[in-house]
């Protein structure tokens, strides 16, 4: 089960994920991110505090947008991940490519500094 909700504050958009991302629902995540890019959002935050598990298919979704973020100069960061989920990002090495912050405050700070 995966629940995705979107919150927009001024110029930044937060994607709130709840539940698990696996092969069966990674398409939903893909569509959600794809839509934000299409609507030209330049500051995208992912609230992963409700994320229990992410499979390789879910990681593949984030990975597939890395180039797009770079090309369209989108600021993309994930915060609030549990230790277990962070470890998954870390083992794959994806934490070297995606900005991952511990909590919302740190995330907002990063955005303001940028």
């Amino acid at each position: 089960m995966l629940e995705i909700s979107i919150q927009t504050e001024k110029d930044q958009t937060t994607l709130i994920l709840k539940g698990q991302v696996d092969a069966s629902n990674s398409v939903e995540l893909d569509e959600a991110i794809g839509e934000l890019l299409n609507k030209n959002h330049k500051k995208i935050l992912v609230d992963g505090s409700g994320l229990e598990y992410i499979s390789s298919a879910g990681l593949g979704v984030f990975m597939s947008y890395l180039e797009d973020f770079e090309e369209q100069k989108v600021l993309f960061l994930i915060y609030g991940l549990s230790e277990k989920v962070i470890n998954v990002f870390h083992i794959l090495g994806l934490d070297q490519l995606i900005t991952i912050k511990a909590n919302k405050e740190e995330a907002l700070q990063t955005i303001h500094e940028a």
Partner: protein
Amino acid sequence: MFKLPNINIGKITLLVTILTWLGMLFVDLLRLFGTINQMNLGIAPEITWSLEIMFFILIYIFISRSLAQNENNNFIHLIWRGASTGLMALGTGLLIQFFYYLLNNTRLSKDPLLANFFYHVNFGMTTIFLISCTLLWKHLILYQKNKNVVQQWQIYEVMLTVSMFFIYFNQNSFDFTFLFGLLFLLIFSIIISVNLKWIPYLTFKDKWKSILFFAIIIISSLGLFLQMLSYSEKGFILVNLTDNLFLLGLFGFVFIYALFSFLVTLFNLPTSSVFEQKLTEAINFQKLSQSIQPGQSESQVLDILMDSCMSAAYVDAAWLEVKDENNHFQILHQRFITNKDRKDIKELLKEKKPFSDYLKNNRQIDLEHIHGPLDHEIFNSALIIPIRVNKELLGNIYLLKEVKNGFNKEMLNIISTFVGQASISLENHRLLNEALRTERYKEELKIAQRVQRSLLPSELHHNGSFNIVGFSEAADEVGGDYYETYQFNEHRFAMIIGDVSGKGTSAAFNMAQMKGIFHSLAQLDLSPKEFLIRANSALSKCLAKNHFITTTYYLLDTDKHEITFSRAGHCPTLYFKSENGKSAYLKADGLGLGIVRSGKFENYLKEKTINYQPGDVLVMYTDGIIEAKDQAGEEFGYDRLREILDISYQKTPNEIKEIIIDEVYSFVGASSLTDDDYSLLVVKFDK
């Protein structure tokens, strides 16, 4: 060897019957001769009676045998047998009378012996006619029999048998008991003669035929009865064979049943078309429900449906249109109507309520049919029936009639039933085809499984200083886990373990590509980091955008006791160091293959070298093991795996492998299915 001669019982019965008849004739003529010459020959009438009873029984046996042997027992054929026998018996009687007419009062015409001979001939023919008719009636009465009817018939047969022997009792006199017995037989004949269930099953034409045949039988039985009476009145008959309760009872029965059948068939004629119609509908219904054989196409089912609807409603013209992929209606079947008329009517219907509402938007899901009047020069009423399969509109049937208000409630009901049945047939047909397709896919997957299994090595390279065992299981038929070894020389080896993102078929294809890359790059004897950089650049060109592969590549030198490895996003290697007496995960930064598809990739890779000692154990695995969940949703995790190795490091590699797999399985619980691919390689260094 003694062998019984092949006896034809039918022929023997016939022979004995004729001999009995001849015996009776001889006895009677002898007695007559005695009377004429006033001699007492001492022949009691009981002999004649006994021969007569024997004759009856033999005829009964012969005819019932010949009926049983005849397979063509349809009703018309049976009735024709009775009618033809009647004609023969009556004809024989008439010929004899014609013969006497020719003799015209000559002395011969007064001869009692000749008269008695002809009397016996007539008696024989009448008996054959009556008994054969009785047996035919038995067939008709017992058609669709129930217990009651069978009992009634058995009682009647007993009564007939008793009546045969009645002659011994009343000594051939025409008294009160005789009349009483006859009345009794007649009343019972009437009771069993109401069993006429076979009549509705005759077609209209057959009913006419049977009416004709019954008329013949009625006339024959009346004629023969009159002829019998005339013999009794003439008085020169010394031995009266025909004033017999059995024979008179049969006369009554044959006549009554023939009369009943005649009248009932006659009165059934006007309604017979309705019955035939219902029978056709039942057969059509059956055809529709059976028309789901895989060989048959949907068009054939619709064809049967059209015919069924047309005949159910006595329709003058009809067509059937089905929706194609583009939601356009295509004409599939068209009957008794020209293309021009059809187009005209379609236009008329589109303008006219109630049809227009339906035809303009096909959204009325639960509508079974629409019918109403039509202003056309030929057709004056129309009916549209939508055909739906799985609530999806398949097409429409248009039925047209020349009369106004041509569709009544019964027709609509039966047509709705037909359409319902056809829909079920079509649905079944589709489901069956789908099931066949799925079955084929499963077969294909099995082949893929076999092919993929062969991609994993059955033998892993090693030498005397270390041992290695592998294990892999896929969640689906095919999986994305991969491991392999390569031997450069006697003391240098390469090992790889990999996990393709996602699972199932797409993962399996990528795994096959990884194997190809391994085999081409391993030969170049590259450093682990260089190997991964090249593998990444090769995979960047063929992996889908959101796919990646995690892998760890190891080089092993048993001379130097050295392991060099580089990790591309794969789960960290578990390593038991005998020196420390405990195991730990080997940390090394890295990035999965295919994540960064440019020259920058190498910036994310590290290479590490460790020295091993005898007793060290290296465990390679995929994330399926770490992420295996128990019933409560908890993951197996890194700690459990490490703890298992901490206590089992002394065992052989194969035992360690078995222990880890058993632990994972018992953790997950036997009932739940694996939902990821598991792979495991255990290497143990001996010296």
